[in-house]
Each structure stands twice: as structure tokens, then as C-alpha cells.
């Protein structure tokens, strides 16, 4: 018997995977026979599946009224593969805990592509645990279009398992109707006028990177000393009542409503929020922001060939430009800007989407070893849920 999964087996396993979430122990105990599903030296069949199961974050692909995604329609037209597109990722941690029981008991998650952020611990954890499939690079000639800065992340040095979907910046957003510009972390954490109306991000890497940069420390090399200093800085702001709460994607509501005058926030969100509320402004703090990348990964049991063909498809600059026109995050595909200049010059010239060199020089990447440091993570969680 080969290790290859048929669609049908995959679906059956997906159904089991669903049950595994309810009784993880039970299935872990008796799932022995299927543990090696699609594992080890997977031989890849160069045959397209009928359906590609793609899990992504909300508002993260081109979108037309009636929930149509033109780029996915084009994919179907070209390859005859229907994409079952699910916006079921809201934050890295929740999504990981959703797929973890299936993966740890050797079941398929029922997904062929998932998207996870590299400033969380999860992508490297998935690679380390062997819970993701190797890409079929023979099916991805367009990988040559990957921007050079993204080619060798330390958690996947040769991009054997992952390809960037989008990147984004973490910086400070403020409501210019209610406050003067807030462009320094010092103001955000200390200005009396903002007391109780400031949001920080619950994502460990984002908040830590910005605060460490503000403290004059290097976020790409976290030591106990600089970590503790950053925690002290944040703790002081929490105790003084400056911080209203730590947010995930959900800062957008209070920020748009004016409950938050200023908040740490993600670049692409602000571009989207500005469409409804032009008073919302965003900038990298003077001491620097951080950059992160969401990565496409193929979870164990996913259809490697079909997923790889899809990845190749979105690395076509023309398709990338179409997606970018809606998504408004930072595009990892070389040539997309030129394609977009014809399609929508306004968007193509937005530095939040195709950043200037000056912006790229002013952003940090968090030390990946800190992400997997259990002691740091525990300290952080204790801080944000005081």
C-alpha cells in the first residue's frame, strides 16, 4: 500500500479528525493503524484533486459581492480544481489548538493549505514536529518570484515547507479626530491624555518587539535582561491604567468606535479600516516597528501536488496583483507591483503595501528563539491576563 491518500480517505480522516477534537485521548489511544497517514517519504502523485481545501484568515483574499473570489474562480477554470475556501483562522493559537489533536494522532486535518504567522511559535513548531508536508517544488516554478528577503527564514531555511502568503507591519494607529498624532511608544505607553484608551497586541512578538526597540534593545536578540526590561515597561503601563486591554484582531471595533484613541495595530487592517473611517492614521513608531509574514503550509495528509500547483498559481505576478488589490497587506511576489500599476495605481503606490526602503530599514524581526521560550511565554501570558 502506498502512502498516498485518496480524496475519499482524506475526507474520512477529516471526519475522524473532527471527532478527535472532542475526545483526543480516546482517539490518540486507538488511532494506531492510521498514525503514519501520508507520513515519511511521501511519494507525490502528479494528479490534481477535485477540491483544494484552503483555510485562511478573514478578509485575506480578493472578494467580490456574493462572497465570490475571482482569483479562485480563475484557478478552477485553469486547472479544474474547486477551491473550498474557508476563513476559519482568527488567531494562530486558536487555530493551532483546533488542528493539533488531529495532527498529533496522525489524522489528516481535512485541509490542504493553512496559513500561519512566523512571529508566532507555530510554523516552526509544525515543521519541527513533522506535521507539515514538503512542498512539491517541481510544481512551483514561480517560486523564483519570491522576494529575496523572504527566501531563507531561519525556521525553514530553504522554503522546503512554506511560502509566504502576505506580510505586514506592526505599528501605532491613532484616531486623529480624538488625539494628536501618536508616533512614539513613549507617548503610547505614557501620555496622560490617552489613559485607559490605549490598546496593545496580545501577540507576544508584536508588543515585545516594539517595546524592546523603544527601550533601545535589539528585538532580534532577546536576552533575559532585555526581556525583563520590556516586561517591566509594559507592566508599568498596565498598572498605571494606561492600557485598556490586549487585543487580537478585535481591536478594530473599539478603535473605529473611538474607545481606543491609539493602539498598536497591523498595517493592512488600517488600510481596510480607513476606507470607512479616514480619521484613523497609522505609522511605524520612531524607534521602529516589526514585520511578520503569514505562510502557506501543507498540513500532514494534505494533497501536496494540488496545494503546490495552487501556490505556483498565486506566485504569478498577475494573480498576486489581483489578490493584493483587495488584501492590502505587503506582497511577497516580485513583479506584482508592476502588474498592479496597470490595475490600480493608487494601491500600487501605497507604501503600506509596497513599502519603501526607509520603512524596511525601520522594522525589526523578533528573535525566533524567544518565541519558543516557555518561560518568556508564561511570563507574557501572566502579564496580559494579570
Amino acid at each position, binding site marked *: 500500500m502506498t502512502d498516498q491518500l485518496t480524496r475519499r480517505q482524506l475526507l474520512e480522516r477529516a471526519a475522524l479528525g473532527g471527532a478527535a477534537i472532542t475526545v483526543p485521548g*480516546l482517539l490518540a489511544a486507538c488511532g494506531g493503524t492510521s498514525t503514519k497517514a501520508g507520513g515519511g517519504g511521501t511519494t507525490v502523485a502528479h494528479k490534481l484533486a477535485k477540491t483544494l481545501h484552503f483555510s485562511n484568515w478573514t478578509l485575506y483574499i480578493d472578494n467580490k459581492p456574493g462572497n465570490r473570489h475571482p482569483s479562485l474562480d480563475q484557478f478552477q477554470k485553469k486547472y479544474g480544481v474547486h477551491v473550498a475556501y474557508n476563513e476559519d483562522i482568527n488567531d494562530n493559537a486558536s487555530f*493551532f489548538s483546533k488542528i493539533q489533536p488531529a495532527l498529533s494522532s496522525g489524522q489528516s486535518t481535512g485541509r490542504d493549505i493553512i496559513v500561519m504567522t512566523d512571529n508566532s511559535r507555530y510554523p516552526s*513548531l509544525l515543521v*519541527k514536529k513533522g506535521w507539515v508536508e514538503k512542498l512539491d517544488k517541481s510544481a512551483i516554478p514561480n517560486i523564483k518570484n519570491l522576494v529575496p528577503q523572504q527566501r531563507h527564514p531561519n525556521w525553514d531555511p530553504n522554503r522546503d515547507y512554506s511560502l509566504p502568503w502576505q506580510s505586514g507591519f506592526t505599528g501605532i494607529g491613532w484616531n486623529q479626530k480624538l488625539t494628536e498624532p501618536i508616533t512614539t511608544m513613549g507617548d503610547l505607553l505614557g501620555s496622560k491624555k490617552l489613559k485607559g484608551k490605549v490598546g496593545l497586541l496580545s501577540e507576544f512578538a508584536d508588543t515585545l518587539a516594539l517595546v524592546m526597540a523603544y527601550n533601545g534593545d535589539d528585538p532580534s536578540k532577546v536576552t533575559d535582561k532585555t526581556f525583563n526590561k520590556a516586561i517591566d515597561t509594559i507592566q508599568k503601563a498596565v498598572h498605571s491604567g494606561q492600557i*485598556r486591554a490586549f487585543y487580537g484582531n478585535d481591536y478594530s471595533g473599539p478603535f473605529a468606535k473611538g474607545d481606543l484613541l491609539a493602539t498598536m495595530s497591523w498595517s493592512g487592517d488600517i488600510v481596510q479600516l480607513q476606507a470607512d473611517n479616514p480619521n484613523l492614521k497609522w505609522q511605524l513608531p520612531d524607534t521602529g516597528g516589526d514585520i511578520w509574514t503569514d505562510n502557506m503550509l501543507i498540513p500532514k495528509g494534505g494533497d501536496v501536488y494540488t496545494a503546490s500547483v495552487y501556490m505556483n498559481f498565486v506566485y504569478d505576478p498577475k494573480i498576486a496583483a489581483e489578490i493584493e488589490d483587495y488584501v492590502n497587506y505587503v506582497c511577497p511576489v516580485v513583479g506584482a507591483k508592476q502588474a498592479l500599476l496597470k490595475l490600480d495605481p493608487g494601491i500600487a503606490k501605497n507604501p503600506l503595501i509596497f513599502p519603501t526602503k526607509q520603512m524596511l530599514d525601520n522594522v525589526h524581526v523578533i528573535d525566533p528563539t524567544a518565541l519558543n521560550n*516557555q518561560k518568556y511565554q508564561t511570563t507574557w501570558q501572566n502579564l496580559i491576563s*494579570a
Partner: protein
Amino acid sequence: MGFFHRHRGLTPYLLLAPGMLFLAVFFLVPLGFLAYQSLETGSIDFGYHFTWAWGNYWDAIRHYRGHFVRSFEYAGIATVLALVFSYPVAYWIAFRGGRWKNLLLLFIVAPFFVTYLIRTLAWQTILSDNGLVVRILRDIHVLGSGGRLLATATAVVAGITYNFLPFMALPLYVSLEQIDHSLIEAAEDLYASKWKAFLRVTLPLSMPGVVAGTLLTFIPAAGDFINAQLLGSPTNHMIGNVIESKYKELLDYPAAASMSFVLMAIILVLVLAYARAVGTEKLTG
């Protein structure tokens, strides 16, 4: 037919079987797994191993005592508030509702047609700093000019009270509805004032509803984390939030499991003490 007739003694067990099986598979097995997990040590990177790690329990209590206390405090206040709000409503519907009874009950249950999360998110809008409620409270100087409701303990307790109110109101209604009116008339015939008749007849007869309602409210409220997360600030987080972050963010399953057990144990002790204080016969009516 013949089989059931011959084995009449078996019938109750056969009827019980589906429920028992359900409980065994979906309650006892996960609970056993949770107990096992709570005694493990290790990390997600290197795997978890069973080591009889009783220290997990000690750590849970030692490090998060404040969160436990806060959870029971919020849940307790919310339960009392829910009782105070629902008793008159349930009383009025039961005794004065007349032909509108069912419609009025529907109003109490109506919020349940909307999911828990959406209801709580709606409170974010209601209590927003620039919302009507806060503006009025500022105008009448209940809140200072910079005062707010959202992201405070008040908002968390209010959210819990609101979300669990039907669990209080419905059992109260059921027990009040069953009261035989002639008993109250008899009390009045024996020269009891209306108030006295309420205290000596209605209230004691409605105790099963009070007990059921308080338990149904208090137990889930103590473990709640949604209200604290959406309506509170970090300083209002309850034990549910800590368990959630241990499980989801830190992937520290043993810690999350042992904290869940500590929570369960405390609730059990409190419930037993409560049952004893009000008398167990009240639980069953």
C-alpha cells in the same frame, strides 16, 4: 412486547442506557483523560509524559489564587443580582401573567436565539465610552467625566448577570407556577399580611427554584471567560481566562487540566456546602 413483559425489571435500565452511554463517552472519558493530563509534565516540543506531577495542582493554586478568588467573587455577585432581578419578573409572570404567560416567557428566552458571543459583543457597543449609557451616567454624575464602564469589573459582572439571567428566571418561574394559590389564600384567611404570606408560604415553596437557579447561574459563571475577555481589562481576568491561555497560547496542557480540576473541586465543595445549608430536600423539591 413479549420480551419486555417477561423482563420487566430490565426496562428502566434499557431506557437509561442511551443517556448513560452518552455520559460515559462524552463526560467520563474526557474527564478521565483530563485527570491523566493534569498529572503530566513536559512541553509541546518534547512531548508530555505522565509522572504523577501533583505539583501542577499546587502551582495552580499558588500562582493563580487571585484569579480563583476573583472568579467566585464575580460569579457570586452576578448570581445574587440575577436572583434579585429575576424573582419579581418570574413572580409576576407566574401569578399575573394570565394568558400572556407564554409570550412573556418567550421574551426571557429571546436572547438565547442569538449566540452567546454576539450577545456579549453587543454589550461592548452598549457600554462603549461614547455610547448612550455612559453619556447618561456621566450627565447625572454617576460616572466622572473621564469615567467608563467598558473594561471594568462592573461591565464584566453586568455581562455575566445578563448572559445567565434566563438560567435563573426559568427555574424560578417553574417553581412559582406550581404553587397552589389556595395555600396563599389560606394564609391570608389565617390573618397573615400579604408580606407575611409571601415570606412564610410563597418564598419557602419557591426555594427549589431559587436553589436550582442559583446553581445553574453560579456554576457556569465561575468558569466563564468570554465576559471577562470582551468586557473586562487585563486586571479583571477570571480563572477561565487563565485556563484558556494556558491551553491555547502556552500549549501547557497539564497546567490547564490541573487548574480545571481545582476549579471543579472548589465548585463542588461550595455546592455541597450550599446544599447542606439550604437543606438537600430543597434541591429536589
